[in-house]
């Protein structure tokens, strides 16, 4: 009885928190979730947020970890089909090779929602795909910097992600779009920091030496928060103050960047939300209960966080999510 009360309370809270219309929507539905694995902190956070959101809505979530292998994902999806689940969520590990298994799901009349990454397959094989817009993430970061700098002359250095990776290409493009036409803002140096803290620190050290001890750098833009955390240490080692002498803007919104914001050492981050499941469940609710087909591509919000957005609270809230 007690458990039922707790569940009911959870569902009630979820209804209040999310959207009242969906309060009862997916209660008791069985949904399979094939996750890629846990290769990064963000991925771990996505898993724990998905489980939490499912519990809030009273969904019976069947979780399968594919350990970075497509064959495991295909096996998991076949398993979900055999169990006759109501819907399937997939975070696809690669873009190709999904036609066969998705056709099987379609024939079994089970809607499939793609999370976080797209695939190369006919669009009628899946209900919708929920993902972030990486170009937009870069643009939001750039627009923040344009607003923060105003008319001042500002030389920006950029820490790129792994060369050739899609987040690195898209986040660079979006940032450049935001800076286009602003004569006072120029990207003077751009190098790859491989999305890691230590490379971010090493590259920033080099930039500082090459730009007159950092005096010619007004802002650093990092394609992810980890590189920004490394850059912040490099700036401090050079005797400068990150956040004041050199502005720091990055993408992802992991807990440690909020800790840096609390210390006044980071200025802005753009969230890559780990809550891809929330919009997916909304879409499934509308489809299963009202029969309305959602848009084919649902873009998650790329929210900007600055020290004005209660960084301590954000840090505490995210710390337990598995980042």
């Amino acid at each position, binding site marked *: 009885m007690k458990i039922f009360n707790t569940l009911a309370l959870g569902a009630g809270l979820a209804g209040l928190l999310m959207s009242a219309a969906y309060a009862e929507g997916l209660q008791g539905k069985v949904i399979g979730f094939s996750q890629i694995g*846990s*290769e*990064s*902190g963000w991925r*771990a956070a996505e898993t724990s947020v998905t489980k939490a959101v499912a519990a809030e809505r009273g969904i019976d979530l069947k979780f399968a970890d594919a350990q970075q292998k497509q064959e495991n994902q295909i096996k998991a999806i076949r398993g979900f089909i055999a169990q006759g689940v109501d819907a399937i969520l997939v975070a696809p590990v690669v873009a190709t090779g999904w036609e066969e298994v998705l056709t099987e799901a379609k024939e079994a009349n089970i809607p499939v929602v793609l999370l976080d990454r797209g695939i190369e397959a006919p669009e009628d094989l899946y209900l919708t795909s929920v993902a972030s817009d990486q170009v937009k993430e870069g643009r939001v970061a750039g627009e923040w910097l344009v607003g923060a700098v105003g008319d001042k002359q500002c030389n920006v250095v950029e820490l*790129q992600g792994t*060369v050739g990776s899609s987040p690195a290409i898209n986040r660079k493009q979006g940032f450049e779009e935001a800076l286009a036409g602003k004569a006072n803002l120029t990207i003077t*140096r*751009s*190098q*790859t920091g*491989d999305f*890691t*803290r*230590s490379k971010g*620190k*090493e*590259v920033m*050290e*080099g*930039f500082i*030496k*090459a730009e007159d001890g950092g005096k010619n750098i007004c802002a650093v833009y990092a394609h992810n928060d*980890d590189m920004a*955390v*490394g850059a912040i*240490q490099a700036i401090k*080692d*050079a*005797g400068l103050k990150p956040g004041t002498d050199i502005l720091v803007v990055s993408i992802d919104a992991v807990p*440690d960047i909020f800790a840096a914001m609390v210390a006044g050492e980071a200025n802005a981050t753009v969230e890559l939300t780990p809550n891809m499941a929330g919009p997916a469940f909304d879409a499934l609710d509308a489809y299963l209960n009202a029969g309305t087909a959602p848009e084919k591509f649902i873009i998650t919000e790329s929210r900007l966080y600055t020290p004005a957005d209660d960084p301590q609270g954000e840090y505490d809230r995210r710390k337990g999510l*598995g*980042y």
Partner: protein
Amino acid sequence: MTRPTVDLRPTTQPPRAPSRPITSLLVRPQVIALVAVLLVNWALFPGFFTITWQDGRLFGSLIDVLNRGAPVAILAIGMTAVIATKGVDLSVGAVMAISGAVAAVLVTSGVAAPVAVLVALGTGLLCGLWNGILVTVLDIQPIIATLVLMVAGRGLAQLVTEGYIVTFSDPLLIFIGTGSFLGLPMPVIIALVLMVAATLIVRRTALGLLIEAVGVNRSAARFAGLSANALLLIVYTFAGFCAAIAGLIVAGDIRGADANNAGLWLELDAILAVVIGGTSLMGGRFSIPMAVLGAMIIQAMNTGILISGFSPEFNLVVKSAVIIVILVLQSPLSARLLRRLPGTPK
């Protein structure tokens, strides 16, 4: 070049001078390469050799090269000994991740920092011992034996950190990674001390000779009464120990243990440093200081690329082009060509 071959041709070479003049040390291809890379860096960025005194430590691009090159140099010290025995240790990058993870998790759970450091170093010794046992007792080829830990080790590190980047604020660990002594960064001091100590141990005792003997011909060494297995165990354990030190430095540097990325692919840089240093992968003659010099050449290149302003797509191309040039300069072919040059003693 160090194989025990017999030359049947009559030799007219004079007996070797008891001690080589210092100039012969300076005209080695490695030294020329390092100077050339540094000069190119200087041409690309005029302030390259500028060193200033700031916050009680030396500050400048040259110091960055030493500091950033130190972890690979430390790995290369252990790797030189392994390669001299005709082996190779692919697991050092993963062992770095394990040692950093162990130290970080211990200090964040309240263990005293010196204890955490000792346990991390002990873990490195154990990892090296494991490799050594696979190579000696089970007689598995070194490349396969150490591949096991290269793959599994990173997983172990992730188990220790539970997938998080474990951050810490312990002053001792941070000092190992970012502190300074006599104006030089701690990693540089550690690498220097380790290099001098290791060189003295192998060259002032028979140990170096024994390592070379095992590398040239393990069976022959055993038949000559040498305990080849014990020696191999020592060498692999030492490589694990060096990797653990490098792991502590890398973790201290970013104030956190990043099990996914700490030491990733550094085993390849370490092997490259050893090869640039003139130690043959076929075992035999080796030089620890030259391997350290090799690590500095690699890092000088990396730092040069960072400050040159090239777009990052060129990084690997530039790096491989320079390495090819260095290896061609060291090849037996170019040595023969050099000998044919007029003016050099026949």
